[in-house]
């Protein structure tokens, strides 16, 4: 199968092991996912506040959250070895199966998130005596962000620790 220069560049990038220590253990990957979820929530919340709120002060929060969010996205993608970033032709059979599982699981989680969002927006409208449409846009944007990011979070949480050896265990002996 033909691969392009872009494919090879992305493959090398996603398999770059220089930052491997950052996501080497389950605990570190969970921390990275938690921080990424928090940064996504803060960033999206601030963006909604900027666009629909009275002032532009929250734009600074969006700008401040952006760089660490990008870096953490890179960490999570690195931990999955580019499971969701690489084209299918750059993945092997096990990775393709894993990508399908991740997408299916993320889809189910997002479905329940949508159900919760609909119920939550309805409850907010009823309890706060506010028009439902006031809650619709922020909820939609929030759910869209979750839908976008959920596969990455799921994939990073499903990554297994590396085994004891890597590539050079028998290099000296052979």
């Amino acid at each position, binding site marked *: 199968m033909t691969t392009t220069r872009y494919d090879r560049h992305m493959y090398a990038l996603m398999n770059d092991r220089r930052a491997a220590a950052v996501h080497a253990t389950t605990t570190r990957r969970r921390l990275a996912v938690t921080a990424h979820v928090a940064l996504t929530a803060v960033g999206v919340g601030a963006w909604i506040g900027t666009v629909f709120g009275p002032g532009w002060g929250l734009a600074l929060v969006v700008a401040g959250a952006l760089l660490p969010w990008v870096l953490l996205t890179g960490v999570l993608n690195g931990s999955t*070895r580019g499971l969701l970033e690489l084209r299918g032709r750059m993945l*092997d059979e096990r990775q393709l199966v894993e990508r399908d599982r991740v997408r299916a699981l993320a889809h189910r989680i997002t479905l329940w998130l949508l159900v919760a969002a609909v119920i939550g927006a309805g409850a907010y409208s009823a309890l706060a005596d506010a028009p439902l449409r006031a809650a619709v846009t922020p909820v939609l944007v929030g759910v869209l962000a979750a839908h976008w990011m959920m596969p990455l979070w799921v994939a990073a949480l499903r990554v297994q620790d590396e085994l004891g*050896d890597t*590539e050079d265990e*028998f290099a000296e002996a052979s």
Partner: protein
Amino acid sequence: MSEQVHNRLAVVRAERKVSRQALAEAVGVHYQTIGYIERGQYNPSLDLALKVARFFGLPVEALFSLEPFQPLTDEVYGRKQ
């Protein structure tokens, strides 16, 4: 429901002094996939199992089985009571 496929890939790989990376490159998969197979967390396709067997010059049933493998020393020397 998928059947657990047992393998002695790690033993053979160690005996032949082949790294996961070298084996992975030879059979065209990511090196982590070799680890997943060795840990029993992924059952390889028939295609991949045959490629691995061909790499080691062994019949596929020497590497993969539906039944747990006996230790190699038991097979070679027999278990002493």
